[in-house]
């Protein structure tokens, strides 16, 4: 900043003001307006209607399915994230870059293709269907994957798969392996090394990864849409929002915004937590 003062102080200030104004305008129009719009639309018919919309059996069932899918997806992906980031950052081996890239696949492929891939594995034409049938016949169970809760869970796991590992890998890369190596040479066992040395470093990144994973799992739409067709049974909240919106009547659209507002509130809470964590991490 000091060098700016030398010459054209006024001109520099104008650039600064214009750029900040542009940024604020962009963020307001593109990101803040939609948030306001959801809340305004959801309250269009008053508070009574708002709470009524949230209490229908469809919405409550969707909430239940969403919570189940999210909890399982977060547990699976957190476990995976911890294990994968340990393997990738603490050792050097051939094909490491390829492995890291493969883990990131769910980020760059269409969620619809993710859903389709499970349909093609477990569905009518899927090669794993005879396998599931054999299990069902042998054990007398009735496991269904496609168009049932397990399919919804799998789709949710797929799309949020790299979220935790993505937060952990950069932090562990920066930290290096010296401390763990020292501990190992002094005779510490694997889990002790993780608990005493690695964990304190990745605490914040882990919490943030889990939160982000949760937020994405709650809101997944495309992949789940391919695997879930029964409203009131296997629908998640985003699918219920879709069904209400597409029903098309003025009331049902307001209802769909009411349900949306729940997810918006969660998104805002996630953003605030992230902001606080990032602040804390920087301070440390």
């Amino acid at each position, binding site marked *: 900043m000091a*060098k700016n003062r030398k010459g054209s102080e006024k001109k520099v200030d104008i650039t600064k003001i214009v*750029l900040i104004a*542009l*940024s*604020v305008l962009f*963020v307001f*129009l*593109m*990101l*803040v307006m*939609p*948030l306001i*719009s959801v809340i305004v*639309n959801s309250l269009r018919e008053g508070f009574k209607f708002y709470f009524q919309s949230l209490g229908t059996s469809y919405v409550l069932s969707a909430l239940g399915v969403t919570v189940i899918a999210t909890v399982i997806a977060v547990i699976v992906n957190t476990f995976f994230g911890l*294990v*994968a980031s*340990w*393997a990738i950052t603490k*050792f*050097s*081996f051939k094909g490491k870059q390829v*492995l890291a*890239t*493969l*883990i990131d*696949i769910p*980020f*760059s492929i*269409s*969620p*619809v*293709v993710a859903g*389709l*891939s*499970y349909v*093609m*594995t477990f*569905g009518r*034409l899927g090669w794993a269907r005879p396998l599931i049938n054999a299990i069902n016949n042998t054990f007398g169970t009735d496991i269904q994957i496609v168009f049932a809760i397990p399919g919804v869970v*799998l789709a949710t*796991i*797929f799309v949020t*798969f790299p979220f935790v590992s993505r937060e952990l890998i950069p932090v562990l890369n920066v930290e290096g*392996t010296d401390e*763990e*190596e020292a501990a190992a040479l002094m005779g510490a*066992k694997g889990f002790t*090394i993780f608990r005493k040395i690695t964990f304190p470093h990745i605490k914040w990144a882990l919490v943030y990864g889990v939160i*982000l994973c949760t937020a994405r799992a709650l*809101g997944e*739409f495309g992949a789940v849409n391919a695997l879930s067709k029964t409203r009131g049974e296997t629908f998640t909240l985003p*699918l219920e*929002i879709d069904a209400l*919106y597409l029903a098309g009547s003025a009331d049902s*659209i307001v209802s769909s915004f009411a349900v*949306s507002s729940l*997810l918006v509130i*969660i998104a805002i809470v996630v953003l*605030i937590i992230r*902001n606080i964590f990032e602040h804390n991490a920087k301070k440390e």
Partner: protein
Amino acid sequence: MAKSRVKKYRGGHVIPGFGLTLGITIAMLSLLILIPLASVLGNAFRQSPAAFFKTITQPNVIHSFETSILCSFIAAVINCVFGLILAWVLVKYEFPGKRILDGLIELPFCLPTAVAGITLSKMYSTTGELGGPLSKLGIKVSYTHIGLTIALVFIGIPFVVRAIQPVLEKMDKQYEEAAYILGASKTKTFFKVILSEIKPAMLTGFGLAFARGIGEYGSVIYISGNSEKERTQVVSYVIMQKLNYLDYESATAIALVLLIISFLLLFFINVVQIRQSRRTNNV
């Protein structure tokens, strides 16, 4: 993975747990991601090449690819411009409300795509908060390519900002100062020195936003209108449509093409990133 043995005597594996963690990683990755994706490939390849090409050359399929690629490309370009401005402002300037602005960038990552989709669609419809005034100016946004592009800008902006921001933060001030002292104007310094430094990061952000845009579903299907005649169907929508008609052959054929595009982009992003890390390590 037997190769890991050979490396052992280089002293790389003092830390325990290599076999276990790598094994679990590869097993979970294969079971949950790779094998299901492979079954899409398997089903697509089971068709005769003629049938495959007939499916993917149907007019509505070709149009959907054109729409997805073109709109995502334009959106990614717009995001590069605003992403650079936003990253610049967030790194270089201090002003009140900066932390809130910084936090809001991440919103599209946290907001469910379906919620973003219905909200944008409503906002930009002729009766909406922004669509109303715009329609008076003769600009129709919802149910057109413009609306589709706006939704993709919304989805893609955090990718570009978050790619550029760390590079700007780390960038050595010396270059800037040297260029300035040597007599380059502010504008020239920016375009010749700073822009060339952040170009790889910008390309990464561009690639990520572009890749995300091409496969995007939830946030675009409401605002696009999905009209075959107006050519506003996106690829994901067409796949879902085929899936709903139980036309698995077509769905997998189109998905295969989409997957190939995604992998090419992923490859491109990786090449850029590897080059970038080599460059920064050498300097």
